[in-house]
């Protein structure tokens, strides 16, 4: 096998429980985002645009959907003769096998995969962030600093810093200290969960970590602190673009809405940094004589006969006459009947909403909206009957939830 300079390992294992009903049959990275994409399209497109052509996607939860979504990697230009994109579930080695016990363990279990390419560097990514980043610049920084490991960091508001892994660095960007969710943060530089390691160093530390019975086998909690303790050369690479963790319903909603500002907080229409994805085979969308659409994203296969304001419509969505969609996200192939109102809601894939419904319009005190705030959420593959009313903040995940 030809030696690779750098191989990316993408942690896509998460069951995404905080995304709740949207991930009941889909791994989190396969959740739709931004009208045409899935979350995983962002790190994969970043790899492709950064000239990284070998990506291992580590997953143990529902790999089938991911497997068939990624296919041969062609949409991301990752169908290379040597390299490409590989879904890596845990496997039996020798006589035994075990599930991934943590982020570091996932990579540890796939050292044989890495060994095939014998790379100089390994890039570790997570599958639930939305951002456009040129990893080749980070690699250049890593090489210039002659680092053992480089952690990408982004400035966060200091009052929110306690939610992140925070780096304390010297003037030369060398990391002095790493604190996971510190109570009194000493800096506003938060880890993005994007690491570059020298492969040999990584291998050595993963082996040490695997021996340690007390370790949670996590990069942030175990491997990076241990490397710091052992005085490895570790540097922080500052990123100042748009970056959003979309691990919660609220952040997923917000990140979609960020595309609608003028100019958008994240510019997707960027010929120098295309976001690739698997395109559905559908005609251009159609807006009827009665349609009113403004301040929205609409894509192929949509048919709009009603009103759409400040919303994101995914592929194949149908909005019937007399219906008003506002501040909402309609996932792929959802169908909204006539004379319905939907406000600040997320409607799941393939869900059918009947006529004369009120979604997210009425207010009810009995709603547990701890998961969603005031966002109303209807799961995938639901059927909402005519004249149903689903109050603001409600989560509809099964038939009985519809009143």
């Amino acid at each position: 096998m030809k030696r690779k300079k750098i191989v990316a390992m993408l942690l896509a294992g998460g069951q995404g429980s905080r995304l709740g009903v949207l991930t009941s049959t889909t791994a989190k990275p396969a959740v739709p985002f931004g009208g045409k994409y899935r979350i995983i399209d962002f790190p994969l497109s970043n790899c492709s645009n950064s000239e990284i052509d070998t990506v291992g996607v580590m997953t143990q939860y529902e790999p089938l959907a991911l497997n068939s979504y990624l296919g041969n990697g062609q949409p991301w230009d990752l169908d290379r003769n040597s390299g490409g994109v590989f879904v890596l579930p845990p496997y039996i080695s020798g006589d035994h096998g075990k599930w991934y016990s943590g982020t570091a363990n996932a990579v540890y279990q796939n050292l044989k995969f890495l060994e095939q390419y014998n790379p100089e560097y390994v890039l570790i990514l997570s599958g639930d962030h939305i951002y456009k980043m040129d990893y080749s610049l980070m690699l250049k920084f890593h090489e210039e600093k002659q680092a053992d490991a480089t952690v990408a960091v982004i400035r966060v508001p200091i009052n929110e810093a306690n939610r992140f892994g925070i780096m304390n660095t010297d003037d030369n960007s060398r990391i002095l200290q790493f604190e996971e969710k510190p109570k009194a943060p000493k800096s506003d530089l938060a880890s993005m969960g994007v690491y570059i390691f020298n492969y040999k160093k990584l291998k050595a530390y993963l082996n040490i970590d695997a021996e340690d019975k007390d370790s949670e086998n996590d990069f942030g909690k175990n491997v990076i602190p241990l490397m710091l303790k052992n005085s490895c050369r570790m540097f922080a690479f500052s990123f100042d673009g748009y970056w959003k963790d979309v691990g919660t319903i609220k952040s997923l909603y917000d990140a979609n809405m960020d595309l609608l500002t003028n100019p958008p907080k994240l510019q997707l229409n960027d010929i120098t940094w295309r976001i690739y994805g698997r395109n559905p085979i559908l005609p251009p969308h159609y807006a009827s004589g009665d349609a009113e659409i403004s301040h929205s994203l609409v894509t192929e296969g949509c048919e709009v006969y009603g009103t759409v304001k400040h919303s994101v419509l995914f592929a194949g969505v149908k909005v019937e006459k007399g219906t008003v969609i506002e501040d909402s996200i309609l996932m792929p192939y959802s169908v909204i009947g006539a004379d319905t109102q939907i406000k600040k809601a997320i409607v799941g894939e393939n869900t059918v909403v009947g006529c004369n419904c009120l979604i997210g319009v009425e207010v009810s005190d009995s709603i547990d909206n701890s998961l969603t705030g005031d966002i109303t959420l209807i799961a995938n593959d639901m059927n909402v009957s005519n004249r149903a009313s689903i109050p603001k903040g409600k989560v509809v995940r099964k038939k009985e939830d519809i009143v």
Partner: protein
Amino acid sequence: MSKDVFGLIYTGESNAQLRELTLSRSIAAVPFGGRYRCIDFILSSMVNSGIHNVGLITQKNYHSLIDHLGSGKEWDLNRKRDGLFILPPFVTKDNTGIYKGTADALNSCLGYIRRSKQRYVLLTGSHTIYNNVYDDMIAQHRETGADITIMYSIASSVSDNPYDDLRLKTDASERIYNLAINPQNQVSEKRSCDAFIMEKSLLVDLVVDANSHALYDFIRDILIKKTSTLKLYGYRYDGYVARLDSLNDYFAHNMALLQDNVRKDLFNSLHPIYTKVKDEVSARYGENASVSNSMIADGCEIDGVVQDSILFRGVQVKKGAVIKNSIIMQASQVHENSNVEYAILDKGAIIKGERSLRGFENFPIVLRKNSVV
């Protein structure tokens, strides 16, 4: 599945009738329907019928066609066995590379035809657009024991300037007893859709025979002359058929896509139309956008008014701009407060701010590629 059929598409049709649109491209490569090229419809129809060996006979100006088709992967035709074969004219010292007619072109592709392993060949042109699955036609061909089956549709009107308007007269069993090309008076409502199915061996015989008699046109010199000696059958197709006889027809057939029934017929989700993927973002509507009865492709950015129009990928409509009854091709721009009506803007055309451009229903204005007004 029609595993025993291969497709052969002739794209060398005379294309003067589409005026500026075919200056630097063949009809097969002319944009249609917001994100397609004409060839996509025939090619997808073949692929959706289970045909996965397709020869594409090109003449000149096939560069943009090759660009569009690439390795054929969007049609799943990038195969080790069979797949998509571009058959360009073979230019040598003895050969100018310009065919004298369809039969002459077929003659130069006999190597490919003979190598193809399938028993039947489906021969088509590229200027007729529909979304058919040929299974029924192939079944009928086998059942009737026809030598050649010709797909036709009911076309009551006669085009002003028809291109190879082949009219069929058939008896109750659909056997053809009369064929006429470009007749002065309408001899029949049954008009050929330019799709012919026959055994490969028959095609080879007919082409070799024609060539040895210095006859070069498949319709005029073979079909019509042999109407009585060959067993010719018609296969009636009732779906929507768009024939690009003239620029007006091209305009009208694009506009027909704004009717729900035509759109649902041509973009039947059970057998989709494939085309080149361009990874555009979603279309973006601004706060001042007002769009009605229009088809909008991805990558458009609209902050103006669009009515009764087709916008291809990546079109920009700035604030205050008004587009009506027009076809705006890929990456064209209409700037602030400009008006465009009854116009066809070819790829990359730019209408600067505060300008007005107005054609007429039966005389749409055409702006050439990359023109700036």
